[in-house]
């Protein structure tokens, strides 16, 4: 049996208790971001101020874990200094790497902080080894997070043709439209992940309870209607139900979440360096449950891939956490591409 390396488990934290929950439940690495629009999860009350960051980094490092700081939005014209300050802050803080998407920021980090390890964010949308190698060559990027649109065969092809470490998403809500570059949120609200740092910002969202059903509106646009027994999802336009040619259905995307648990042996075999759990907007309870389950699965894989089976308890735990309570292998095993 060829030896396979167990991928690093990268877990989300939107608060200090979530970071501690990730570390306590077996994360190798935790990623988090600032409380501002340098962060693609810029939701009210979420994320870290300086004090929480310092404490979080100390907590993780004291236990031998790594921390990654996500500065994964694109600088707004005239405000580049804010993004530069975020990178300087990460270097100061002793983050083990920064996750960047914008080439201008990669260039800034490379020249200003040559010792700072750089990861290419999923928002950077590098889908080919040429794109990943470009980022390595030009900016010294050490790891790239691949968008959730590739099949595993395509992921393998990237890995075989690059020296960069490759990280893939293994669990969580899906945002598939060109990895956050989609215009749907901007169309409805004028704000999107790459401008303000949030898709479908909460102040535009209304949940309206009516007898027997709940309506979801985004800036007044009806995007879904759930009857009382139906599971709900996040109020993103891409996962709404719309009337198209007389039929009402999920015209853009099904509201499913990614769960690549079954593919874990294959993910390890092709040499994926790290698997990432989505969900910095979720609570410490989610982080604890998702991290614990993936840790157990990775540890089981460590005993030998040939004996690896997905335990029903893992499936149940992750299924419960998933948006819309549905799981999918995502694009990883999609027949079309």
């Amino acid at each position, binding site marked *: 049996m060829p030896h396979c390396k167990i991928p690093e488990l990268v877990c989300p934290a939107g*608060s200090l*208790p979530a970071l501690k929950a990730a570390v*306590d439940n077996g994360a190798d690495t935790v990623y988090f971001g600032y409380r501002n629009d340098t962060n693609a999860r810029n939701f*009210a009350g979420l994320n870290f*101020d300086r004090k929480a960051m310092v404490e979080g980094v100390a907590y993780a490092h004291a236990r031998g874990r790594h921390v990654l700081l996500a500065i994964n939005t694109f600088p707004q014209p005239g405000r580049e200094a804010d993004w530069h300050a975020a990178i300087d802050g990460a270097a100061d803080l002793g983050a083990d790497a920064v996750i960047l998407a914008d080439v201008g920021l990669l260039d800034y980090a490379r020249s200003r902080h040559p010792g700072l390890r750089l990861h290419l964010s999923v928002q950077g949308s590098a889908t080919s080894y040429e794109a990943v190698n470009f980022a390595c060559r030009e900016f010294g990027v050490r790891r790239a997070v691949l968008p959730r649109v590739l099949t595993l065969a395509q992921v393998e092809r990237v890995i075989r043709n690059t020296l960069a470490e490759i990280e893939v998403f293994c669990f969580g809500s899906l945002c598939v439209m060109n990895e956050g570059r989609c215009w749907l949120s901007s169309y409805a609200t004028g704000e999107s992940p790459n401008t303000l740092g949030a898709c479908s910002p909460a*102040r535009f969202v209304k949940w309206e*309870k009516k007898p027997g059903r709940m309506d979801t509106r985004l800036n007044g646009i009806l995007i879904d209607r759930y009857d009382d027994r139906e599971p709900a999802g996040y109020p993103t336009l891409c996962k709404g139900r719309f009337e198209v040619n007389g039929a009402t259905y999920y015209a853009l995307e099904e509201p499913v979440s990614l769960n690549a648990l079954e593919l874990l042996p294959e993910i390890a075999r092709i040499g994926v360096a790290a698997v990432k759990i989505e969900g910095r907007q979720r609570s410490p309870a989610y982080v*604890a449950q998702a991290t614990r389950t993936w840790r157990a699965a990775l540890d089981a894989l460590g005993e030998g891939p040939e004996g690896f089976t997905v335990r029903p308890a893992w499936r149940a735990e992750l299924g*419960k956490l998933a*948006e819309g309570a549905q799981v999918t292998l995502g694009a990883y095993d999609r027949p079309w591409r």
Partner: protein
Amino acid sequence: MADGFCKAFTIPGFALPSLVARVGARLPQWPHAVALAAGFNAVVRMGLLPGENLALLENRSFLIDVLDTGCRAAFTFRDGRFRPLFSVPDAPDLAFRANLSAFLQIAARQEDPDTLFFKRALSVEGDTELGLVVKNMLDAVEWPRFPGMAAPPLIRR
């Protein structure tokens, strides 16, 4: 050992019989509001809620509606303190509705509010952003660790 201790405290999902709600709804509601406001004020006094977020709650009205007990608690936040509202506003700025078990699971950090929301076990009405502020503020609270207790107990089951 910690394991056994925590397992014993896992809160199951349950719904009380509808009779409870019918009786509960006839009882005076303000004692719940007084108790809740007092609890939140204790948390404020301990400095566990950041001031910048608390400012966002100023003068907003909140309703916690426990569906299966029929208990409703309304309160507001003014001048640094939570204050009970003795009459429940028709359209509070923010209303959380769920059965008792769901509220207990959230309070114990045993379940993620988003999970309960997806399952339709928790409903949030009113100002969604305010709801997010409240959720994220509570998530960020670092509960003090009491001597003899390993950690936030329900996180490490």
